[in-house]
């Protein structure tokens, strides 16, 4: 069963003083997220990620379209008990302590009192917040609030969690912890849908990603699919300052940096290259199949759009000139 099925959700805000000027925040979006996967929702700032999440949470109402979450209509209040949500840069009632806040949220999610009693310390230690008893949230740092936000999202043991920029405000150690946490959620059979503009996080975690830009979905797929190997190329790195003739004939593309040399050759010539290096008694450092990084792909995806539009403009301009 699909955890999330987005069926053409779209949102147009009316802006300006009289709310007459339409502003498209999200083009009709079709997207399916399977149960049990970690799904990354990628896009630069202002791409429409948060709008999508707010639509799914029922915080804003779509101009058109609908969605199904865990097999039910997304407006069904029942499903809210089974999903967790971490908003972007979360902020909470700062007059409460972390325990009180989680207790309140637990009540609202219908978690029973005994369950709350053992679950709250559990999730707090899970997100690395210990020794915060009796401290009001107004004293919390940004990173601590982010952790509280994650804690409240998983408190009621939801089947599906939505994280909006879960790593923001965290130090490198914190980011690592959140990554581990998301992987653990996946191991527990939960579905994680998270938005980010940091690609390395997505690359490290996601089963599949979607790329959204300017309110429009650009591409969806598994990381491996999107970053498929560059047709039969490998990268060979060895120690030395020169390129042996045996290698040079195989590849013109070699770079010398310090005492290492990096060369790109065809996969089928990899053995010949190793032989050539061995003959020259040079130390081989690594041989890796070449892949496009997600970043390259991402930038490509965003740029293709820009270039194609600019080309069109140029074409049109040229057309008028002729």
């Amino acid at each position: 069963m699909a955890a999330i099925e987005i069926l053409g959700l779209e949102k147009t805000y009316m802006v300006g003083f009289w709310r007459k000027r339409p502003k498209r925040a999200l083009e009709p979006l079709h997207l399916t997220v399977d149960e049990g996967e970690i799904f990354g929702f990628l896009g630069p700032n202002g791409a429409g990620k948060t709008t999508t999440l707010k639509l799914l949470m029922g915080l804003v109402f779509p101009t058109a379209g609908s969605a199904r979450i865990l097999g039910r209509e997304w407006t069904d209040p029942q499903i809210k008990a089974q999903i967790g949500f971490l908003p972007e840069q979360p902020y909470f009632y700062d007059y409460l302590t972390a325990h009180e806040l989680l207790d309140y949220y637990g009540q609202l999610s219908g978690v029973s009192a005994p369950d709350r009693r053992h679950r709250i310390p559990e999730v707090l230690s899970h997100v690395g917040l210990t020794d915060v008893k009796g401290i009001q949230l107004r004293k919390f740092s940004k990173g601590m609030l982010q952790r509280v936000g994650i804690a409240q999202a998983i408190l009621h043991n939801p089947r599906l969690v939505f994280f909006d920029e879960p790593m923001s405000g965290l130090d490198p150690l914190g980011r690592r912890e959140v990554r581990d946490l998301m992987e653990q959620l996946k191991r527990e059979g939960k579905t994680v849908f998270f938005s980010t503009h940091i690609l390395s996080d997505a690359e490290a975690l996601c089963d599949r990603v979607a790329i959204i830009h300017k309110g429009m979905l650009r591409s969806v797929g598994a990381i491996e699919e999107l970053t498929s190997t560059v047709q039969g190329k490998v990268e060979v790195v060895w120690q030395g300052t020169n390129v042996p003739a045996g290698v040079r004939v195989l590849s013109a593309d070699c770079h010398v940096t310090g005492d290492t040399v990096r060369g790109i050759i065809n996969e089928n010539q990899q053995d010949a290259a190793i032989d050539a290096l061995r003959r020259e008694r040079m130390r081989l450092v690594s041989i890796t199949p070449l892949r496009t990084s997600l970043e390259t792909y991402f930038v490509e995806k965003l740029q293709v759009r820009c270039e194609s539009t600019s080309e069109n403009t140029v074409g049109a301009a040229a057309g008028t000139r002729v």
Partner: protein
Amino acid sequence: MSSRGRTTVLAASSLLVSITASVLSLRHIDQLHPTSPVEDVLYIGSPKMVKRASFGFDGLMACMYWTRTVQYFGHRHLNGEMSYNELAPLLEITTALDPNMMAPYQFGASFLAPAPPNGAGEPDRAIRLMQYGIEHNPNDWHLYYNLGFVYYTLKDYKQASATFARGSRVPNAHPFLKILAARMAEHTGDYSTARMLWSATFETSQDSHIRLNAIAHLRSLQVDEDVTNLQAAVTRFGERAGRLPSSMEELTAAEHLPGIPIDPDGKPYELSPEGRILVQNPDNFIFVTKGTPPGYKPPAFGRLRK
């Protein structure tokens, strides 16, 4: 229907029902204490206290009290009540809050001094109110006129004359103040003097109560004057003919009048067998002193309406 749609429908119908119900219950509450709010306003009877309690919003409070005064008077008047006990305190509070507001003084001049049912019957307070007004607005001739008018209605012609004279010396005073001052000395009983005063009251006021009151007085004056003149004609006729005229026609013929004189309502005056001139509907002229049948009592209701 989605749960959101259901909530919307429920909330909308609850809004309609409860707003209707609240208006209905408010109407019900109105019936519980139908008297206007003015009575309980006067828990604070002292103008000074009200001024202190108004926290500097004197002007606004004065307007509010003025509205309440007019309402109080109109309400009591409409119900034909015989007393205006709160009129003086209301006017005093209003003028204490804003001594420069002219309307309350005019109102007081017309309705404070006359005895019930035409006024509050408090001439002393009327005089004090006018004097207070003059103290704060020494350059407004209207107030001298009002005070002189009060003296006039109290038949204190000496004071009236002096007051009118004082008023005539104020810059930009209306010229008739000088004439009134002179008339007070000699022609106090004249109908023309009375007519002049009431006409002036009518012309210088915007207040409908005051203007209606002035019109009623002017109409009654007209009747009084007509009846006086006609009664004199009857006497002359008697002296000449040695008997009373048998009819109005005979009287008008003897006096060479063009027709039978009519009252301000257009109804001809009548002649009683005893030789008295009578007005047909004395109830329409509430301030008349002449032309009424013996033992006539003015009606309590609808006094100022035409």
